[in-house]
């Protein structure tokens, strides 16, 4: 990141309205280096301009947000992706996270929160919307479930009690700062818990996650 105060962001969304909305809301705090309205042009432009953060619409003509992730990440792993959608369907959310996005928020998010999410993703942390936290709790429910496939890594397929607590508070609508205060831990610790959950989310072979992924023909 060249200028930590003003991250360079790239907008991928097929709705021009949304793109201009984000521009006006975040324009003062970020540098918008480009826009695209479909997957192919997005891959081309992102690989060319290498922004800090890509705001990626999950539903996109030409293969969806997942195609963009697959087209960019092998070449520029330093580019961070923050997924956005209106729908909130679990398979959409899980699909983009497992494809490599560092965070997921809904489009109803306020400008200030979106900016915070951009900063956080730009710094390599994970951003969980309450919705995503709920999905993860759902997917990892029941601890070491009997329904898990044989030979899975318990380290990856279970949430620690602390991670569970953090996710629960996020799902209740708490900000990272509020979570930290409620659990009397530092904000940095909250972020590391969330990043650890994100990693599990991306790598776990838990039945629920693979099922959601299969629904999106990811595996």
């Amino acid at each position, binding site marked *: 990141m060249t200028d930590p105060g003003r991250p360079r962001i790239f907008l991928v969304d097929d709705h021009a309205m949304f793109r201009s909305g984000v521009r006006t809301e975040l324009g003062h705090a970020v540098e918008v280096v480009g826009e695209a309205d479909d997957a192919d042009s997005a891959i081309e432009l992102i690989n060319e301009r290498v922004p800090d953060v890509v705001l990626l619409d999950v539903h996109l003509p030409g293969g969806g947000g997942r195609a963009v992730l697959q087209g960019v990440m092998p070449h520029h792993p330093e580019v961070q992706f923050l997924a956005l959608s209106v729908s909130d369907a679990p398979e959409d959310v899980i699909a983009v996270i497992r494809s490599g996005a560092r965070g997921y928020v809904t489009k109803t998010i306020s400008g200030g929160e979106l900016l915070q999410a951009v900063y956080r993703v730009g710094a390599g942390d994970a951003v969980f919307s309450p919705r995503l936290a*709920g999905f993860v709790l*759902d997917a990892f429910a029941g601890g070491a479930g009997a329904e898990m496939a044989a030979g899975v890594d318990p380290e990856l397929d279970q949430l620690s009690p602390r991670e569970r607590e953090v996710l629960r508070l996020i799902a*209740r*609508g*708490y900000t990272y700062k509020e979570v930290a205060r409620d659990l009397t831990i530092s904000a940095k610790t909250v972020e590391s818990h969330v990043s650890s959950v994100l990693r599990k989310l991306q790598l776990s072979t838990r039945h629920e996650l693979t099922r959601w992924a299969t629904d999106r023909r990811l595996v």
Partner: protein
Amino acid sequence: MDLHGQWKQHRRGGRRSHRLRGPIRRSPDARVLAGVCGGLSRATGIDVTLVRIGFVLLSLGSGIGVLVYALAWLLLPLGDETTTIFSRAVTDWRGIRLVVALIPVFVVVQLVAAALHIGYLGSFSWPVLLAAGLAILIHRNAGAAERVWINDDLLPMLRTGADRHSRWSLALRALAGVVLGVGGLLVLILGHTSSAALRPVGGALLVIAAIVVVFGPWWLSLVRDLISERQARAMVEERAQMAAHVHDSVLQTLALIQRSADDPRHVVRLARAQERELRSWLFEGRPPGTIGDEAVTLADGISLLQRQIEADHGITVQVVVVGDCDLTDRLRALLDASREAAVNAAKWSGAGQVSIYAEVDRDAVMLFVRDRGQGFDPEAVPGDRQGIARSIRARMSRFGGSAVIRSSPGEGAEVELSMPRRELVR
């Protein structure tokens, strides 16, 4: 000549003639009971007072007078009526069944009379009971005008115990009780040796009858008081529930309408939604502000709640549900309480978004309603404030759940609701 004309001719026919003149009719204007004596007197020319004395003597002697009177009542048309009560009674099957039901009473009275060797009671009872049967038919089949008279004037005279405050009825009951009681005691004390074994039984029966006559109406009134007390309590509960429902729906809507007075379209939408809800409450019995059968699972119910609150209150509702289960009555109550919490947030917090998080556990459902608005001091809210007290806490505790409200000024508010999924084993 029609019957009416005949009747008029009879009236014109001299009263002093002792000859029977054609069909007898009961007299509607010279009557004490049914006008039978008046009619007879008119038809025969015998003075009405004499006829009455004759009936009273016949009744006291053997009871036959009562029966004859009842028969006459049944068979003679009143005034200028064209049909008799009897002609209507023959098709009144319910009435006839009631009369048949008197037969066991008749049998019992006969048995008691025989057992007690009271011959006159036995011979007295059958005409009286027959007359009672006829009285049932008369009451059920009398003409409209006569029935009004029976219901308004005659029955109140007989129903002495019905009016608790009437001194007359009290005196009459006391008198009847004393007569029966003294009679019973006399039978008990002066029992003849010949039937010594059975007399005490008869005496006891009479004493019991006395007690029933004296205290029966009082017992009845006690039972009536109990029933009305229970009804009153049910009504108070019903009122409380209704107040909660009206508060949840109508009052909320009215407050919203006042706030959005400058947006006519929004007002119309609110009013229409409220109208729909009230209709479904009044005519389909579904309480307003509740999630009905359209939602099967908890997640369905919460997303329905989300849509309704977003539509009605213009606030974004963010919903996260972990796990799911079928909706039960107690979970519907949980949803009602969470609706109230979210609506409170929409109305008072000033926040643009409220978060609902629900987690379904094996034993309980936890639900959090959180806003980032101005917050309040939960201690400062009077405990009787309708919204929090009734709609949230009372609803939860009615099903064994609990509600915790956390807030402080400037910090937003969070309502934590917990509802056990099944009855707690105590």
